[in-house]
């Protein structure tokens, strides 16, 4: 469904991605783990079209998207939940969700879609007239995910949903991600530093080191991989 081949992305002269090959199939949860500065967020931004790939191909449902503008890519069904949530803090919860529906025929199915999001994250319903900035970190993350779902994506790109969130809420959010995948049939591409959680959740996973994919395989298999355990699980893993 989403196929990335030999993608290279630069920030000025600095090369962030050194030929990434990766694919995500329909209905899967695919995780990408890696340390700080490995290029995980850059890869997501490149898929979304916010950063442009200097070379390589990104194909989504048979169509090249590497040169498309970000809003066109969202229209095609790839929506990103950016790192750090990036909630519109002075707008209310509901206005945030409204903006998520921007790409979805400018909010034609708003009433129905927002109900689905509220059913998924009931706390957002209680907070709908509150400003985004007044929510807790976990609630903001739910809002960010809900906001992205409002665009009815086929693929949801999640950038570090566990960042800066209470451990209890992290579990809840990962359960929600699984539900979104299974019940709403949304393909998930998850980027995480919390390697244990990400691998447990994933059907398949990739490890990104210095802008290159070094290891790939089913999530459970990678959990048992000695190198991964040493580098990402025993020392650095949370929970």
């Amino acid at each position, binding site marked *: 469904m989403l196929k990335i081949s030999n993608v290279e992305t630069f920030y000025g002269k600095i090369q962030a991605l050194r030929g990434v090959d990766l694919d995500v199939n329909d209905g899967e949860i695919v995780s990408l783990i890696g340390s700080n500065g490995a290029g995980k967020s850059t890869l997501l931004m490149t898929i979304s079209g916010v950063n442009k790939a200097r070379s390589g191909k990104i194909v989504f449902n048979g169509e090249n998207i590497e040169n498309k503008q970000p809003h066109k890519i969202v229209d095609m069904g790839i929506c990103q*939940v*950016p790192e750090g949530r990036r909630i*519109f803090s002075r707008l209310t919860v509901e206005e945030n969700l409204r903006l998520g529906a921007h790409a979805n025929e400018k909010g034609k199915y708003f009433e129905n879609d927002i109900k689905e999001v509220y059913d998924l994250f009931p706390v957002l319903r209680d907070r709908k007239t509150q400003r985004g900035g007044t929510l807790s970190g976990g609630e903001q993350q739910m809002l960010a995910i809900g906001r992205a779902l409002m665009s009815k994506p086929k693929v949801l790109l999640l950038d570090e949903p566990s960042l800066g969130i209470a451990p209890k809420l992290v579990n809840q959010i990962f359960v929600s991600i699984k539900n979104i995948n299974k019940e709403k049939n949304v393909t998930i591409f998850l980027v995480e530093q919390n390697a244990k959680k990400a691998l447990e959740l994933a059907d398949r996973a990739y490890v990104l080191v210095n802008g290159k994919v070094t290891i790939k395989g089913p999530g459970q298999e990678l959990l048992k991989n000695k190198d991964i355990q040493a580098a990402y699980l025993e020392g650095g893993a949370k929970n």
Partner: protein
Amino acid sequence: MEKKDIIQSFKDSLFTGLIALALFGPIVGLRTVSKGEGLFIAPQWGVVFLLVGLCILGRFLININSARKTEFKIFSSLSSKFSSITEDKAKHFAITGILFAVVFPFLPFTDRYFMDVAIMILTYIMLGWGLNIVVGLAGLLDLGYVAFYAVGAYSYALIATTFGWSFWICLPLAGVFAAFFGILLGFPVLRLRGDYLAIVTLGFGEIIRIILINWYEVTNGPDGITGIPRPSFFGLPFKRSPDEGETSFHLFFNLEYSTMHRIIFLYYLILVLALITNYFTLKIRKLPVGRAWEALREDEIACKSLGVNPTNTKLTAFAIGAMFGGFAGSFFATRQAFISPESFTFIESAIIVAIVVLGGMGSQTGVVLASIFLIGITEMFRDLEQYRMIAFGGAMVLIMVFKPKGILANRKPTILMHGDKK
């Protein structure tokens, strides 16, 4: 409060006094007087010490105030009263305001001078509302807004004097021209934010003014354009003795001729134009494009990730904001019947930005209050002549000290789900 705090704030106020002395000393203290054949210095140290003393005292009071972490009782109660009035009863307030504006010309104390001031205030309210779209909603700091005001005024003046078309045809054309210039400015600044954007827009405002001065063949340079046709009351001119075959306003309605008719008409014209601007802004805030403006102000990357096209969104904000500036400009041209580049200097942009910021970015009622306050104050202190800008500056400082987020800092949410309408 602790003794240490008092000593600290006292030291700080003395330092403020030192700065004040350095400023006021040469500026106020050394006055030059021309006596006979030469220029002499007449020092007036008394005034300087008075001013420095005031600065020290003022600073000291502010310090004590903030050290206590509570405001002066008077101010806090005043400001809380103020915000409770405007938040809870915003709608009442708006309706009363509009009603007052409608009956204003017929109130017993209203004379020609009041009407002129009211027209001026309304023009600034309209400009403030127009700029509010760009600055308040879309978050793009535009320091060259006067350029669109100028484009509107000049397009109206040129079209009306060259082709002799009526006000009602020229007005939309002027708006279209201004919107076009808005897009023209928008393109080069798409990638800029904050300070950098402000500098470029500032430059744009100056470029327009300098073109107006130097493009003599078209704009008549610094001499300006004279004889701009006055607006007619839907075809009925405001003239004492109408031309052959024409009926003028006072004859048609069987009234005694009075110059006030035209003034009152102009007043209602700008009132309606301003209200249209306001209505439009309130409506568009609830449409996808309006929400996209507000989202863009908050976070551009989040917008991109949600499929908002930042290019189009910014350009529409510039274009629509500019269009209302252009409408206000053509009103200005038809009211004055004479325009020159003099009227479109940077200080105009600064005043409009000040109105938006002091009003509380994005607040429509705030713009009204700030316009009345700022323009009203400069008018009230007209007798002070050159010192009235001091009153203007002082008013701005006071608002920023006591209401740092603007007079009305709160924005209402644009959507409430059915059932929780308040």
